[in-house]
């Protein structure tokens, strides 16, 4: 079955990439110059007990990768009793270590903040996708006109614009009119119900607009070239010959066919989008995973850095995998009979 094979391949790919990321993540933080043990648990703010707990949990006095002595003795299982194994085991238990700065459980920290990044991403991406596809379609349809040139230039310009700088500009412009930092006005709490959530929504406006503007440009460019190709295909001429109006040709033939490659592209650029979220959260102090990473970089909080990287990488891999699945559903040529 064509489709079965396709799904199998994509699953294998996703799994292997996940494993590669996990291994990479582990080794990156173990190849730091200096005493690895110190780097992972050294922090004046950590209590002795916490340090001890980590030492035990992560087996920091054990060999890093493989215990060659035990291996030579023929003790294979024992040879695997290493930091790496401890790391993987902890990973599956949901234990990502403890933050240097806040002494909080990293996994908990991430779980708390992840929805904030998701909300930001969803809002920005949704607008960007809809607007980008619409403008790209129009530009391709009106190929060669000034409207097309304008849309193309806009697309190129927003591609060249650094996300964080756009954020800064909007921040300067909107100062005084819209909230420019944080998630909510100090003083309001979730318990305050609707007024709190409305306040949060207000704080979300600028970051979302920033994301939307940057990524609309990207999608405009891609949709435009995709639609151009589709509109030159024979079946479009046939549709015209059938007496369909331009609107119907665009809606019932061009759009459907051009959207397929868009699914793949949106997935591929999702990593880029996540990078943008980091910048936007930093500029607007939006307390999501991106902002967390920024703060962790500044404070050299390695466990948090490691944990957030893992989370982001895994999400992007998953997103790609889901997009691949979605594609197999949408494109009948990939489906089995």
């Amino acid at each position, binding site marked *: 079955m064509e489709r079965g094979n396709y799904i199998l391949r994509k699953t294998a790919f996703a799994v292997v990439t996940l494993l590669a990321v996990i291994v990479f993540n582990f080794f990156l933080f173990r190849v730091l110059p200096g005493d690895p043990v110190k780097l992972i648990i050294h922090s004046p703010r950590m209590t002795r007990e916490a340090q001890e707990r980590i030492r035990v949990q992560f087996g920091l006095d054990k060999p890093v990768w493989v215990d060659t002595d035990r291996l030579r003795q023929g003790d294979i299982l024992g040879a695997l009793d290493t930091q790496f194994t401890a790391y993987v085991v902890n990973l599956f238990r949901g234990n990502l270590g403890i933050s240097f700065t806040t002494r909080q459980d990293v996994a908990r920290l991430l779980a708390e903040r992840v929805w904030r990044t998701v909300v930001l991403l969803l809002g920005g991406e949704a607008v960007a996708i809809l607007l980008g596809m619409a403008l790209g379609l129009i530009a391709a349809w009106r190929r060669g006109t000034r409207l097309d040139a304008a849309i193309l230039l806009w697309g190129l310009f927003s591609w060249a614009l650094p996300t964080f700088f756009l954020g800064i500009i909007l921040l300067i412009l909107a100062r005084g009119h819209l909230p420019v930092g944080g998630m909510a006005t100090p003083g309001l709490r979730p318990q305050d119900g609707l007024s709190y959530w409305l306040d949060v929504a207000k704080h979300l406006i600028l970051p979302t607009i920033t994301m939307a503007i940057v990524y609309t440009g990207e999608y405009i460019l891609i949709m435009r070239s995709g639609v151009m190709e589709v509109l030159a*295909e*024979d*079946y479009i*001429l*046939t*549709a*015209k*010959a*059938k*007496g*369909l*109006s331009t609107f*119907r040709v665009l809606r*019932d*033939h061009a759009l*459907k*066919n051009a959207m*397929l490659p868009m699914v793949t592209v949106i997935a591929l650029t999702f990593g880029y989008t996540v990078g943008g979220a980091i910048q936007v959260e930093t500029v607007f102090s939006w307390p999501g995973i991106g902002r967390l990473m920024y703060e962790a970089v500044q404070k050299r909080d390695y466990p948090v850095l490691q944990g957030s990287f893992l989370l982001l990488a895994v999400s992007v891999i998953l997103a790609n995998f889901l997009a691949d699945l979605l594609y197999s559903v*949408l*494109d*009948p*040529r990939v489906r089995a*009979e």
Partner: protein
Amino acid sequence: MAILLDVRDLSVDYLADDGTPLHAVDGVTFRLEEGRSLGLVGESGCGKTTVMLAILRLLPQEGRIVRGQVLFDGKDLLQYSEAQMRQVRWQHISMVFQGAMNALNPVRTIESQIVEALQVHSVVEHAQAARERAGELLRLVGIPPERGSQYPHQYSGGMRQRAVIAMALACNPRILIADEPTTALDVMIQAQILELLERLQAELHLSLILVTHDLGMVAEVCDDVLVMYGGVVAEYASSDVIFNDPCHPYTQRLLQAFPDVGRPGAALASIPGNPPRLDDLPPGCRFQPRCDCPRRGPICAHEPPPLTEIAPGHYVACHWVRKV
């Protein structure tokens, strides 16, 4: 018999990159009577497809119809607006394009594409009834109706060709234009498609225009033949006359060039030279550079020969063919 389509002096230019007009088709004239079939033959690039596209106003962006009339049921289509043309397309005149493989949208079912034609022209509005009608059309061309819910890539080349024909018949058009309906198909399938076209013509009282470079097909299916060369009409007569009494030197060479099953060992006669380049057209007769007719004279290189009726219903464009 009533004249369904009356094309007079149709001329089409293509604008080159720098804007100069290339005279791709010049002075094409013919008629199609109800219930009869016309074969349009000529080499690749002689303008046959351009003439058909011009009739339906489906030329590419650089195309310009510069002269002529296209009278359908007495009304000149060239005076129609785009909106009016949309009413004519498919409902009255439909077309099966060259290379049917790509004429179908790959991500929609065959059925949905036929239903679309039915619904757009309000032939059948109700979805379920439309699907049933689509199934009937498929059966008409020899495709099991259940396969309508499949996608084009699941059909073989021959089936796709038949599906496209079914789709073209959806709105019961008066004229069906079939452009090279059998190229790239193997011989067995070619025969099937031809048979299908003949059958449809008889059953549905369809008027057919068959565009092809295959004379054998024309001999079998068509009542009248229009021979084109280099964008102009060389000869136009009934099929009998063209095959038994061709008068234009090009028609004669064309018939000679066709391999004759009855004489398998005979050398293939080809016509030396190449068709004229649109940006370098001979000022006189367009066939003159390749014409080896002994009666050639200086007039051939200077004056384009007018299309003259040398016998009732037999038209030739050559200075040296006299009226009978």
